[in-house]
């Protein structure tokens, strides 16, 4: 008589239950939307901050000065050796003449610079790194390349960026984690309230000999459906809010230097994450909510 897994029944019971307990379902969806919007907004702020910090980091480069005794040809020949140094992402070569011109152009209002001799500057490479955290080590490695006279690196500034970024990432992770747990309990309580009205049904099922799994599945389906509905609503609402904020930032004088990542370019991450989190808090909330009522 007994069938092990009756997917059709679980599906129809779970979906049917959403509509028969309409108000509680609405409340649960609203809670999921609110939680996802709070978490999503915070994460998007963190991601944009991270990107802007990253851009600033990329502007941080090492100046590798070549020994004065090297001709331009010899200096250029050092490129493969410098490229082999760990953590070097890319480099640009600048001759001493170009460096002098750039210098004069930059400080054209300073008269003293006019008399500088042509060989006042050295040939140099400007090096970008793959990982700014390793700046001190990279500086040292570059100094060990034969022909390199000196390496100038803003180690303190770079380390400052790394620290700010690490703190921002850490704070973001902790806050998102806390929000996730809070959301789970809010959803659990919302569904618990819904389940409270159905404790009699659960008790009857238990007395008839229903297994815990059989009782649980329709609630899992319900939680999953509520979670997905909430996720999709939150996804589109988040889109609207993000666009609105981005437009205002672009228009604003003080914040116009900030670059915002476009929402569309993040859809392939945001949509699965929202759906995943929605389903986890929907299903997790359902399971937490009915746990108590199953102990009969």
């Amino acid at each position, binding site marked *: *008589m*007994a*069938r*092990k897994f*009756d997917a059709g*029944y679980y599906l129809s019971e779970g979906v049917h239950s959403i509509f*028969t307990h309409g108000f509680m379902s609405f409340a649960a969806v609203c809670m999921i939307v609110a939680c996802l919007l709070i978490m999503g907004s915070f994460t998007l702020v963190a991601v944009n901050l991270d990107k802007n910090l990253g851009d600033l980091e990329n502007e941080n480069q090492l100046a590798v000065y070549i020994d004065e005794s090297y001709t331009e040809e010899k200096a250029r020949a050092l490129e493969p050796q410098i490229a082999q140094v760990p953590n070097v992402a890319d480099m640009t070569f600048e001759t001493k003449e170009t460096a002098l011109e750039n210098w004069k152009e930059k400080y054209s209002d300073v008269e003293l610079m006019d008399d500088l001799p042509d060989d006042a500057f050295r040939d140099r490479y400007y090096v970008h790194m793959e990982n700014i955290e390793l700046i001190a080590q990279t500086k040292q490695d570059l100094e060990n390349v034969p022909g390199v006279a000196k390496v100038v690196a803003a180690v303190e500034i770079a380390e400052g960026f790394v620290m700010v970024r690490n703190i921002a990432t850490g704070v973001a992770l902790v806050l998102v984690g806390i929000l996730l747990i809070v959301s789970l309990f809010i959803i659990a309580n919302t569904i618990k309230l819904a389940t409270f009205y159905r404790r*009699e*049904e659960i*008790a*009857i*099922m*238990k*007395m*008839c*000999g*229903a*297994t*815990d799994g*059989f*009782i649980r599945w329709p609630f899992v389906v319900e939680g999953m459906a509520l979670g997905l509905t909430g996720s999709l609503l939150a996804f589109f609402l988040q889109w609207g809010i993000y666009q609105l904020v981005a437009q205002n930032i672009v228009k604003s004088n003080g914040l116009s230097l900030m670059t915002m990542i476009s929402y569309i370019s993040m859809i392939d991450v945001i949509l699965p994450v929202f759906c995943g989190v929605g389903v986890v808090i929907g299903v997790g909330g359902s399971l937490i909510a009915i746990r108590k009522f199953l102990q*009969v």
Partner: protein
Amino acid sequence: MIRLIDVYKEYDNGTKALKGVSLRIDDGEFVFLVGPSGSGKSTVIKLITAEIALTEGRIMVNGYNLNNISPRQVPYMRRTLGIIFQDFRLIEKKTVYENLSFAMRAVGATNREVRRRIPYVLKLVGLEQKADRYPGQLSGGEQQRVAIARALVNNPSMIIADEPTGNLDPQRSLEIMMLLERINELGTTVLVVTHEKNLVNRFDKRVVAIENGRIMSDGTGGYYNGEKI
């Protein structure tokens, strides 16, 4: 078959509900379990249905040893029992038919089995014309008949009725008891928990009297007529 051997039950608050109860109910029997409020009747039922665990002693229910039954086995043990409550415990939002199909689906019955079994059971309890009614549209007696039908629908080997007539007038109570008697005649073991003296005395059945957590008497015939607890 049910066997309780020297069963003790002490609740967490220190109440000693059962103090060495031994009882045997064989297949096909009709038994009244009688006693005043707080005597331990409900504790016996809760122990038999594995709602609570015993403190000491041994309990066997339809081949299951409740002393070492695993939580996974409890639902299967309960499928051998049909339970009827004083307050009917019907789902108000479901029709009579749906209440019964709900109980059948809970143990994994197919649609075909549901369609075949429910009309038979409804006919047995005399409600074949009321399958589409909601519990709120039925009288108390009819609601209890639905509860009996629900208890029977999964074809249990034993029916346990906990104060089944507590919310009914004497005439409806008699009808319900006669229905249970008929179900027993069809081969199902019946255990009725009650404190209604007059009702018990109208049936010539085995009566187990319990008081203060102990079995005071166990015999056939109107218990309340002959002896005083």
